[in-house]
């Protein structure tokens, strides 16, 4: 079963009611009844409930409480005071179920997000568990690991015959494997409780701010009216016979020709090598960035994305090769000077915000750089207005929403008038509504003020919808640098970079169109539609 809904709709609270954190860790007022395996939760205890309901939390780092893989899997057994001899075979057994049995001695720091999640899953797979509860299992995973996670959940559900409840807002990714029922929440109320097919054919998901699967978006754009009988919950199973002609005629009619623009190069990375100690992190990397580009930097964790970002910001300097900023070798700039030309926005705004009041935060960079009073005033006014938070300038930061905090961090970078803004996972962990808010805001910045933007991301939707070019990293090498639709139809690159074929690709292959052209037509048509709206 899938529980779906935007942030703040009550999904997590509902989950906490099931696993017993409500009412035992978060006391409050409860009305009505909640029964798990026949027992009323309020008359049970969190310990009794945790024996029946196993929960995998969203933050795979924080929930890894053991000092080794084996220790973490054994954690619940330790608390049960189980003798060690009994514990060992059980730990091995659980670890084997999730494919982590060769890592028992490993410490958490070297594991990937996906591996940590597997360990968490193994840690709750003990004896009496009847319900497995996953809180946003896809949040921290790259696309391919996400698929593997959903696959694993599906397998375990089948083999152990237990109930699985997944809380997510990434509908398409969860539907990679069959789901029996979807419950849609909004403002703490259930607004839909139906099968995936029913839900996908209704208009509810679009109304409630959930992202529609891409292939359905493509079908609807071509004017196809998909019905339940077509089995639309998976791109491989959907019945396309009726819609084939409609799709082909629509997408061959989209005019994809673009005016050729002359662009000036602002940043050029030339044959750069970089190593940490003896480990090579970047190997002969070259690419260039033009003024007013929107570029996605993609690749799996540890592929060199973050190293490349640190290198561009000047935190790290190349061992070999050159970085040219507006034609000048950037070695002559200090980090501080570079910070005024290339702005770096971190993934988590809480890691950037140091002041209490919004305007103080935005002026901090200018104050630290010793700018004059007038210049500071002028720049922050401009930045705050660009980010649409000028009326809120005297508000304390603690009261604003996540999306607004993100704006504050971006404003504090913009105030320094950088040529380029580098954003690390700007939408990580955000639902579709906040995602759309952040991304359309960045798009406006780019379009209206000609600001060059680089996104470090593994969200392929983001790349498709909002960027023109993708630079792909794998094992420290730059393995692709091309328009998004070309990258997404290149199987080699997708595999090497742990990306995932979008459902558009599968749709195109199924109706016999060239995926590259099809994805391009879709992107063009989709953007035109979005611009008409805004």
């Amino acid at each position, binding site marked *: 079963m899938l529980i779906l809904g935007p942030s703040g709709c009550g999904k997590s609270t509902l989950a906490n009611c099931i*696993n017993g*954190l409500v009412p*035992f*860790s978060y006391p409050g007022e409860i009305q009505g009844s909640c029964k798990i395996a026949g027992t009323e939760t309020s008359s049970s205890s*969190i*310990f009794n409930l*945790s024996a029946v309901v196993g929960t995998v*939390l969203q*933050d795979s*780092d*924080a*929930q*890894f*409480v*053991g*000092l*080794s893989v*084996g*220790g973490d899997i*054994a*954690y*619940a*057994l*330790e*608390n*049960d*005071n*189980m*003798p*060690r*001899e009994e*514990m060992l075979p059980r730990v091995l057994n659980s670890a084997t179920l999730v494919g982590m049995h060769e890592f028992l*001695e490993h*410490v*958490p*720091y070297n594991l990937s997000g996906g591996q940590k999640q597997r360990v968490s899953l193994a840690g709750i797979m003990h004896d009496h568990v009847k319900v497995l509860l996953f809180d946003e299992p896809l949040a921290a995973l790259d696309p391919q690991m996400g698929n593997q996670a959903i696959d694993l959940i599906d397998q375990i559900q089948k083999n152990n015959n237990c109930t699985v409840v997944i809380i997510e807002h990434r509908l398409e990714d969860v539907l990679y494997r069959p789901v029996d029922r979807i419950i849609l929440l909004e403002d703490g109320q259930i607004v839909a409780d139906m099968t995936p097919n029913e839900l996908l054919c209704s208009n509810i998901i679009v109304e409630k701010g959930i992202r529609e699967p891409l292939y359905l978006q493509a079908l609807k754009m071509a004017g196809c009216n998909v019905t339940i009988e077509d089995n639309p919950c998976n791109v491989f199973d959907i019945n396309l016979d009726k819609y084939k002609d409609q799709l082909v005629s629509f997408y061959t009619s989209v005019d994809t020709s673009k005016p050729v623009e002359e662009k000036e190069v602002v940043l050029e990375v030339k044959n750069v090598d970089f190593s940490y100690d003896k480990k090579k992190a970047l190997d002969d990397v070259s690419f260039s960035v033009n003024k007013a580009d929107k570029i996605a930097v993609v690749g799996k964790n540890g592929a060199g994305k973050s190293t490349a970002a*640190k290198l561009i*910001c*000047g*935190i790290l300097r190349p061992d070999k090769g050159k970085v040219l900023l507006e034609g000048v070798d950037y070695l002559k700039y200090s*980090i*501080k000077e*570079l*910070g*005024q030309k*290339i702005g*770096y926005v*971190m993934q*988590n705004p*809480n*890691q*950037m*915000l*140091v002041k209490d009041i919004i305007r103080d935060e935005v002026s*901090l*960079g200018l104050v*630290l*750089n010793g700018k004059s009073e007038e210049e500071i005033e002028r720049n922050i006014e401009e930045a705050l207005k660009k980010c649409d938070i000028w009326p809120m300038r005297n508000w304390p930061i603690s009261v604003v929403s996540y999306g607004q905090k993100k704006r504050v961090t971006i404003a504090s*970078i913009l105030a*320094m008038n950088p040529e380029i803004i580098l954003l690390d996972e700007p939408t990580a962990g955000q639902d579709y509504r906040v995602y759309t808010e952040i991304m359309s805001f960045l798009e406006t910045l780019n379009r209206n003020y000609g600001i060059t933007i680089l996104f470090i991301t593994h969200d392929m939707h983001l790349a498709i919808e909002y960027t023109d070019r993708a630079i792909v990293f794998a094992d420290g090498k730059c393995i692709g640098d091309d328009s998004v639709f070309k990258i997404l139809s290149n199987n080699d690159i997708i595999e090497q970079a742990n990306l995932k074929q979008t459902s558009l690709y599968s749709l195109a292959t199924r109706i016999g169109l060239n995926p590259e052209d099809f994805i391009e037509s879709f992107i063009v048509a989709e953007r035109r539609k979005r611009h008409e709206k805004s």
Partner: protein
Amino acid sequence: MKNLNIINLTKGETFLHQLSGTTKVRLFAVLMVYVTMSFDLPIILPLFIVTIVGLVSLKPSWKVIKPVVIFVVAMNIVNIVLFWLANPHCGFEYTGDKTVLFAFTDYLVVTKGTFWYLTVRLLKMLTSFTTSLVFIMSITPSELAAGLTSLGLPYKLGSIVELAFRYIPDISRDYENISISMQCRGLELDAKKIKPIERLKQMIIILIPLIVTSFDRVGNISNAMDLRGFGKGKQRSYYSEYPERRNDTIFKVIYCLIALFCVYYIVSGLISPRDPKMWIYWS
């Protein structure tokens, strides 16, 4: 990252590493009593030699422990010198010897008795240091937690220690990230360019977001622990705590004997106070 400087997160291969956490903690507790209870060279010197052998047997990375050793030895020497400056005759009480070996001024003299006393004192300090070092380097945080529980302390105490070690690397990674972003915004952390006090102020700016993000994490950690039944019973077992093996039994006999000796030594000292004079002057 396998190890945090001198602290091991995973069990090592050598003889001492392989002992159980309970053995290590109990042995350490007994030895600390042993080294504190007297100024007798025949008691301190053998332990010093044994711990040096123990240290070598752990096959430590000398590069890592060198700064620690240099720091502690230097501090202890400073301590001894200060002792001497405060009272150049401080050894008289223990040795009854005032023979002057060397005189700087009338006040600052080196007597045979004081020299002897301070040398023994230094050795005693160093022995407690080497004992601690061997203990710290041979134990993992999980074993420490198990060992503390075996001493009868509440297991929640051990768990706090364990959790602290678990999250130190995460927090230091956060710190690094925050410091990078602040440097890009113009915060100067380069020691060569600014005064130490300024630098301290700048570091505090980084601490604010670090604390905020760490608090976010604490909530998640405590939920994760609750959901896996932490605090369910009075007792808790340990995955990383091996059952007693042959070597542990041998060590059990050893630390029991040492403990008995300590009791005898202290009690007999209470009944008939020992001559405070030191060993070499006994004869």
